Each structure stands twice: as structure tokens, then as C-alpha cells.
């Protein structure tokens, strides 16, 4: 009976595909391994700004199905060091014109990001950050607890909680965007310019001759290329190993969660490193929350529920109104963490093979900037001024870009 009824129901037409499904050609000018936000942005800027359209993006799963679909969509640029301020602020400026540039809606919303301080030393660290941003001409404000309450009335600023709010930095130009739409927008725009986007295409080996990359081996056959860019996020160590070198990356699960849909109660983004939670409210109304990584190395895209419990207890103390909200869904992504909490974007020991990884727990905000500098690096064979400091060599020279403080939440 059920079957009979099903047959009479007409299914809606499949919506138009945003990009053409393609099989790989024999060779390309450049191949980008990884079809997440950073890989797609790299392809887009390579085609748009450097005229390289004979290129392919290889994605082992489905497009934007890794960390691009698993993050909490926070965008900001209030980092501590010059190098980070440079690349993240460039990224934020690109975000500000991205929907028009790409020609696709991304629900980019500059609702501000507030980072709370809960102890005397926390206040000092955040103040330092606030002054550093001032010097770098990045918009930043210092808020008293009363000003925090004015912007976000749901925050508990009473002084009888375990970690009372003692102040906050606030970046008004920061905000959120709709992550899937960002991936789709980049993919559509790149595809329209002639970039081949190939899904279900897993790289299984690198073809290297005389220290120079020649192409990649995949489950859809060998594909030759003049240049190859590795943009594999959590799987970067696996890719580097195929190319015969090691990178200082540890892959960890990072979990996030959403509540059921609620009335709008929070129109900014609030982060707290000390009580370990960051939260925003999506356009539809669900509260989106994340916290620190799980402790151990993993490629499983899931973590322990005690980490979720920990972040929820932190959230409820800071936002008592959330107490009766129901948890709807949790998920995990595999983040590529580096020793100094800064990305690695640049050259590798293999000629014409480029690396973009290590964005760790905060890669989403970097998507346009990362793709932009990576495209420059691939096209010219040299890092741009903005990603020069983020080289792999810094772990040898000791010129680290230590962003553990400004990375938001201690991991």
C-alpha cells in the first residue's frame, strides 16, 4: 500500500547544478588537492586574478563536506602579531566585498565579535591585543562589563559566578556568514570561469621526478600537472607524507553544536577562552556553539560527548537563558593544528608543490585571504608579502607566529 502511495507522489525537479560534474582531463596547468573553502577560493582567485583556468580542484568526498561544513562560521581579524593581522585583515576586507565579487549570496553579517576576559591576567592579555589592533588600524574596542551587557543583554555579568566578566574586546566589523553558501559561491564562480571541479577523486600518491612535482595519482587515474597545491586541512600530514616530507601538524577533532530554533536573543558573536565556549545565533534562530578540540589525534570526524557537556556547562553559566534550550545536533571536524596556532602557507621541499594548511581551529574566517595568497603563490611560484611569514621554515628558524592567545579559545 505504502509503495502504491509513494508512486503517486511526484518528486520535485532536481534544482540546477551550480557547477558541471566532470571527469579529470589527462593534464592541467595546476591541480588543487582539497575541495573545501580554501581550495575553492584558491581556484577562484587563480582563474580570476591570474588567468589560470586550465586547473582542477580534486575533492575526495563531496565539495565543502569537510571542515567547511563543520565550523561555527566566525569571521574576525583581531589577532595579535603583524603577520596574522595582515592576512586575517586582508581576508576580512575580501569578505566585505565577496558576495558582489563572486556574485552569490553568502549571508555575510557584520554583527561584531566580542571576546570576554574573566581574570586580571586575561584582561591584560586582551588589552594588549586591543592595543596591538589599534596600532595595526584594525577596528577594536574595549568594553566594560556594563557595555558588554548593553550590546548583549543575555550575558550574565554578575560577579558571583566562577569566572565573572571583567571586560571584553569587541570588533564591530567581525561577524558570520553561511558556510555552505560560501563554498557553493566559490565553486560556481570558479566553474563558470572553466575550472574543473572533480568530486569523489581521492589523491593516493604524488608523481615526483628530480625533486619536481609532475602530477598526482588518484582513484580516477593519474593526472599530470605543472603545479600542485595541497589544501587538505586535517589530511595535510597524509598528503605531505605522499610527497616525502613531514609537517608539524597534529590532526584533532573539533566539535560544534546547534540548539533547536529559537527567537533571536543574540545579535552578535561572543567568545570566551577561559570558560571555553563561543556562541552566535544563526539567521534561522539556532544557537551555534563551539569550544576546544578533543585532546587526542584523530581522523574520525567525531569526538567525546564530555567535551560537549563541558562547553554547555560553560555556556549556561555565561548565558543563564540558554538553560532550557535543547541540543539539536553535534558534529566534529578534523582540524590541522600547528605548534604556534598559525597556518603554514607557502613553498615545500618539492619544486612546484605548494602547501596551505595549519589553519587549525579558525580557518573559516581565513577562506578568502587564504585562497588569495595561495593563488598568488601558485601562479608566481613565490609567496606573497602577506604569507611570507607563514612559511614551513619558521619551525627551524624559530620565527614563530604565536597566536595561542588570540586564537580565541585555548586548545
Amino acid at each position, binding site marked *: 500500500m505504502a509503495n502504491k502511495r509513494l508512486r503517486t507522489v511526484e518528486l520535485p525537479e532536481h534544482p540546477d547544478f551550480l557547477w558541471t560534474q566532470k571527469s579529470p582531463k589527462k593534464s592541467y596547468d595546476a591541480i588543487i588537492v582539497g575541495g573545501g573553502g580554501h581550495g575553492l577560493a584558491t581556484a577562484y582567485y587563480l582563474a580570476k586574478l591570474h588567468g589560470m583556468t586550465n586547473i582542477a580542484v580534486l575533492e575526495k568526498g563531496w565539495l565543502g563536506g569537510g571542515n567547511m561544513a563543520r565550523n561555527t562560521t566566525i569571521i574576525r581579524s583581531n589577532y595579535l602579531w603583524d603577520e596574522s593581522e595582515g592576512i586575517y585583515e586582508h581576508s576580512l576586507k575580501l569578505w566585505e566585498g565577496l558576495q558582489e565579487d563572486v556574485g552569490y549570496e553568502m549571508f555575510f553579517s557584520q554583527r561584531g565579535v566580542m571576546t570576554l576576559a574573566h581574570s586580571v591576567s586575561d584582561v591584560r592579555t586582551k588589552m594588549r591585543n586591543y592595543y596591538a589592533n589599534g596600532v595595526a588600524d584594525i577596528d577594536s574596542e574595549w568594553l566594560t562589563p556594563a557595555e558588554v551587557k548593553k550590546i548583549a543583554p543575555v550575558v550574565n555579568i554578575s560577579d558571583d559566578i566562577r569566572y565573572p566578566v571583567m571586560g571584553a574586546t569587541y570588533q564591530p566589523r567581525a561577524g558570520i556568514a553561511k558556510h555552505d553558501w560560501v563554498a557553493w559561491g566559490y565553486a560556481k564562480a570558479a566553474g563558470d570561469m572553466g575550472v574543473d571541479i572533480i568530486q569523489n577523486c581521492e589523491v593516493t600518491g604524488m608523481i615526483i621526478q628530480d625533486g619536481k612535482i609532475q602530477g598526482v595519482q588518484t582513484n580516477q587515474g593519474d593526472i599530470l600537472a605543472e603545479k600542485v597545491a595541497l589544501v587538505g586541512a586535517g589530511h595535510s600530514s597524509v598528503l605531505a607524507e605522499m610527497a616525502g616530507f613531514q*609537517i608539524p601538524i597534529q*590532526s584533532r577533532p573539533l566539535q560544534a553544536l546547534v540548539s533547536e530554533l529559537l527567537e533571536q536573543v543574540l545579535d552578535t558573536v561572543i567568545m570566551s577562552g577561559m570558560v571555553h565556549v563561543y556562541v552566535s545565533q544563526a539567521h534561522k534562530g539556532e544557537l551555534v556553539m563551539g569550544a576546544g578540540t578533543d*585532546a*587526542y*589525534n584523530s*581522523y574520525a570526524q567525531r569526538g*567525546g560527548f564530555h567535551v560537549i557537556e563541558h562547553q554547555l556547562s560553560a555556556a549556561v553559566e555565561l548565558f543563564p537563558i540558554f538553560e532550557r534550550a535543547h541540543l539539536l545536533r553535534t558534529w566534529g571536524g578534523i582540524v590541522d593544528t600547528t*605548534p604556534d596556532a598559525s597556518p603554514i602557507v607557502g613553498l615545500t621541499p618539492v619544486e612546484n608543490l605548494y602547501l596551505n594548511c595549519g589553519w587549525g581551529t579558525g580557518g573559516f574566517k581565513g577562506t578568502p585571504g587564504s585562497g588569495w595568497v595561495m593563488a598568488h603563490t601558485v601562479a608566481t611560484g613565490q609567496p606573497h608579502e602577506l604569507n611570507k611569514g607563514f612559511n614551513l621554515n619558521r619551525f627551524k628558524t*624559530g620565527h614563530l607566529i604565536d597566536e595561542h592567545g588570540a586564537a580565541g579559545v585555548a586548545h
Partner: protein
Amino acid sequence: MLNIPCPWCGPRDETEFHYGQEAGVAYPENRDEISDELWAKFVFYRANPKGWHAERWVHSAGCRRWFNVWRNTINHEFGESYKPFEPQPKSPA
């Protein structure tokens, strides 16, 4: 939550432990002579395999002792655990 086999106490909840990354990373010999590259390897580079990984944990809320264990980073399955300075058992792979 992981159920971690402490070689002294038996299997316990993950919340009793802290993680210590790759097992068996020795402090370098000839420290006055080795290159910056080797120092970088020792300080910053750790194994990050997709699959079986020999790693250190400390049972901080239990016996408070360090130990090593094989764990699969794809499905979180545990292999054999072993005490510090004991020879490393073969990878379960």
C-alpha cells in the same frame, strides 16, 4: 568518550587522563652539535598518522603515571598498552 587501558589500573574513562602525543620521542644526543633542523624535528614535529599511532597518556586522576598505548586514529580502537621503558609492542596493523 574513550575507554583507555591504563597498564597499571586497567580500563578507565578518558576524563581521568591527559594526552601526551607521540610515544618514544627521545631527547637528542650530541646536543651541542646537532643542526637547527634536528632541533626543530625534536621540538615541533610529531607523528600524525591516519591509522595506528603509538602515543603517551598520563593517568592524572588515577595512578598519576605515564604510559604508552597503540590507538587507531580512524576508529579510536585501542591496541596494546605498555609502560615507559618497556619495548614497544608491534603495531596491531
